[in-house]
């Protein structure tokens, strides 16, 4: 069923390169989209999908590479030139104007007579079988309706190339079904669609072609009919598995039968996740995997008291700490190394010393009414030496350190409160290999000191390497649990994408 050469080519990108600073995000991407195709684009977090789409949309400029629309070379310097070329992107979170009506939202920025446009919209909607009151305020629309409004917006512009970025991520089951009907209709009308998704079943349901991106390269590409799920999973695994050196630290197995968990989560629900239960034992590293949007970050924020708990209980060391404020959670003995160290972790224009002691200033050991400078320095020295943080002196500004050293400072800050449970959210994102090894060493050391560690990472290798046990979150719930032996890339990837069919996870 290979769809082939008789189809008109809509879009072709050739050898697209893009880097942000020293970080190579896209490394020579080739991609093709013909009339009436749905190209499902899948890939893990940080694979470069959205960067590529933003380049096609004219929001970013590529460093190198060419884009052809209808076989004509185009230069897309801003969003309006991409729109003029017939490209329209429906972003993952619909970007409507909440205070305007549906009609105004669709016609905004569009040239043409209001009454004619209105008729055209009504025509368009009936041709794909929807009814939507054009005079409703956009703020009253459900997420599904908002997505539909976005699509009509694109169609009214006579977009021939539609980019849908995870359109079903916020839709309910019924909405997904009717949404698929719309996509199929559009496909039959000859519109080319790039369909970004994290859900492999959707690839087979709706896609005609599939491309897999991994670390900025396309690892697999072709008509959907030539692949099965197993092959897609293989494509999602990183190709170069050797590049990370292992650290030789012998880890003792944990005696789960005789140790009581230090942290227990029971039927925990909040905004973005449901009924999550798991335990973490002292001296254990529990890996938590899942794709972006699965609810990992929301889960952690809620445990840490930054968002409201809806139901369930959190128990730390036998004490119920459900629903406490961040300050109280911190005092109780949980600390968080946040995912985004620039915005939530580091005090950039403060010294290394001030950063490390920042979480413990209300404790007695740092002085009474006035802070004891010497104690602060001693504590800072301890972490600087232990973690091998490269500083000229403790007074150096934290913002002037390299990424890896910044991360060590943030970890130091979190550990200075002597927590019973440390939550590490993406601890090695954006830091170099040497610093990564240091961070791993720190994690192992903590483990041997009996601290419980919850390790969240998009880098599945990291979880394979470090975790004693691992769980995966999919669509806001835990869908699988693995022992150290079962924690292999294959299982974790499948479970993250929601297609693991092994033993049922229940703890």
């Amino acid at each position, binding site marked *: 069923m290979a769809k082939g050469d008789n189809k008109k080519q809509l879009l072709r990108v050739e050898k697209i390169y893009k880097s942000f600073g020293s970080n190579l995000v896209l490394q020579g991407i080739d991609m093709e989209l013909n009339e009436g195709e749905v190209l499902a684009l899948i890939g893990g977090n940080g694979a470069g999908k959205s960067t590529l789409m933003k380049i096609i949309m004219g929001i970013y400029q590529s460093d190198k590479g060419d884009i052809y629309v209808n076989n004509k070379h185009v230069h897309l310097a801003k969003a309006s030139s991409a729109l003029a070329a017939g490209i329209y992107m429906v972003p993952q979170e619909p970007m*409507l104007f909440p205070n305007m009506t549906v009609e105004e939202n669709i016609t*905004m920025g569009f040239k043409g007579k209001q009454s004619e446009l209105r008729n055209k919209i009504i025509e368009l909607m009936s041709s794909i079988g929807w009814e939507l009151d054009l005079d409703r305020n956009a703020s009253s629309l459900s*997420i599904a309706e908002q997505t539909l409004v976005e699509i009509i917006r694109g169609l009214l512009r006579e977009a021939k190339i539609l980019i849908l970025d995870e359109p079903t991520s916020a839709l309910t089951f019924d909405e997904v079904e009717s949404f698929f009907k719309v996509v199929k209709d559009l496909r039959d009308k000859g519109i080319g669609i790039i369909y970004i998704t994290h859900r492999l079943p959707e690839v087979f349901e709706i896609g005609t072609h599939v491309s897999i991106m991994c670390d900025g390269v396309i690892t697999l590409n072709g008509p959907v009919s030539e692949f099965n799920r197993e092959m897609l999973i293989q494509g999602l695994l990183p190709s170069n598995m050797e590049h990370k050196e292992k650290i030789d630290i012998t880890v003792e197995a944990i005696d789960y039968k005789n140790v009581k968990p230090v942290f227990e989560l029971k039927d925990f629900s909040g905004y973005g996740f449901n009924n999550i239960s798991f335990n973490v034992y002292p001296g254990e590293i529990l890996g938590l995997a899942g794709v972006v949007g699965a609810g990992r970050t929301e889960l952690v924020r809620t445990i840490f008291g930054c968002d409201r708990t809806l139901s369930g209980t959190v128990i730390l060391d036998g004490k119920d700490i459900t629903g406490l404020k961040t300050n109280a959670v911190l005092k109780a003995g949980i600390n968080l190394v946040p995912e985004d160290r620039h915005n939530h972790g580091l005090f950039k224009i403060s010294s290394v010393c001030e950063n490390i002691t920042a979480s413990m200033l209300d404790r007695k050991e740092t002085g009474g009414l006035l802070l004891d400078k010497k104690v602060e320095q001693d504590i800072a020295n301890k972490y600087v030496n232990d973690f091998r943080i490269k500083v000229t002196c403790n007074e150096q500004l934290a913002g002037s350190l390299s990424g890896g050293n910044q991360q060590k400072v943030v970890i130091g800050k979190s550990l200075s409160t002597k927590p019973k449970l440390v939550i590490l959210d993406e601890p090695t994102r954006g830091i170099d290999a040497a610093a990564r090894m240091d961070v791993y060493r720190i994690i192992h050391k903590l483990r041997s000191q009996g601290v419980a560690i919850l390790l969240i990472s998009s880098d599945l290798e990291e979880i394979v390497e470090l975790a004693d046990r691992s769980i995966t979150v999919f*669509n806001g719930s835990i869908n699988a649990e693995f022992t150290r032996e079962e924690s292999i890339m294959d299982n974790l990837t499948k479970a993250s994408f929601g297609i693991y069919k092994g033993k049922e996870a229940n703890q």
Partner: protein
Amino acid sequence: MSLLKKLSRARWLSSLIFLIVLFTITGLVNPTFFTYSNILSAFNSSVVFTLLAVGISFVIMTGEIDVSIGATMGLAAAIAGTIAQRGGSVVEMLIYAVLLGLVVGAINGVGVAIIKVPSLIFTLGIMGIVRGFVYVYSDGRTVENFAGAFTNLGSKELFADITVYYSMVIVIVLVAHILLTRTRNGKNFIAVGDNIGGATLIGIPVVWTKISAYMLCGVFAAVAGVAFASKYGQVNIVAGSGYEMSAIAACVLGGVSLSGGLGSALGAAIGAVIMSSISRMLVFIGLSSDYDNTIKGIMLITIVVADALMHTRSVEKARRARLAARASNHNSAEVGSSDEE
């Protein structure tokens, strides 16, 4: 039906009702307030505020702020004053005013939209600079002793006791209102304030929209300066200072949301009438007009706080609905038939 619907969406209508309520209360406390000429002069005397408020409503609509309008107005008034001293024409004054407004507005716009300095800080700095120019320009002295009929212009009545100025203002407000609600470019201001990311994605020139909002705002402020000079017959070196607060408060009272994306020029004009009537109403109620600024400040804070609370609540509600939809997906899609307890 559709007319009713449209009216219920018009936020300026509730401001108008508020204005009527205020007038009624004042009238009940002191029945002498209820004369034709009193009510009319409430409108006639709001010319300066109305121009300032309508101008700044463009900027506020895009989600920014401009606190330099009082100073711009003061400088334009001083320039108009010196032209009046040598008997120059109003047209000449207006040409200078428009030029001044465009320049100050363009500088503000570039600073906020291109250099991306927070608008409060940038326009605060510009306010200082422009106010400094007023001192230098008028040598620290009050500009007065205007020649000719310039000062009488404002009080000349055109029809039905409505002054020339207020009739002009009515026209300007209506034009601005139609511009904002009925034209493509006008709607861009609202779109940018409503959702700047979405506006970029559908190809609206976000930077240019913000710059032009500031330029319009500057022009309105400078023209208000000409009206100010004519109305008072003299221009003090601190003329217009503090007027930015009244103009912002007028916008907010008129239903322009400080988070951007909501409101209309008509609303801002009604808000301006409320603002400029407060001191008059205080007198009729029997309170000292010294309370004027305090009451304006309280009104501003009350409405802004209420507005901000509603805004954060609706954003948070939307975020939670989105997250909940995401998480509930699993139950229906994966578990399928098994019911939740």
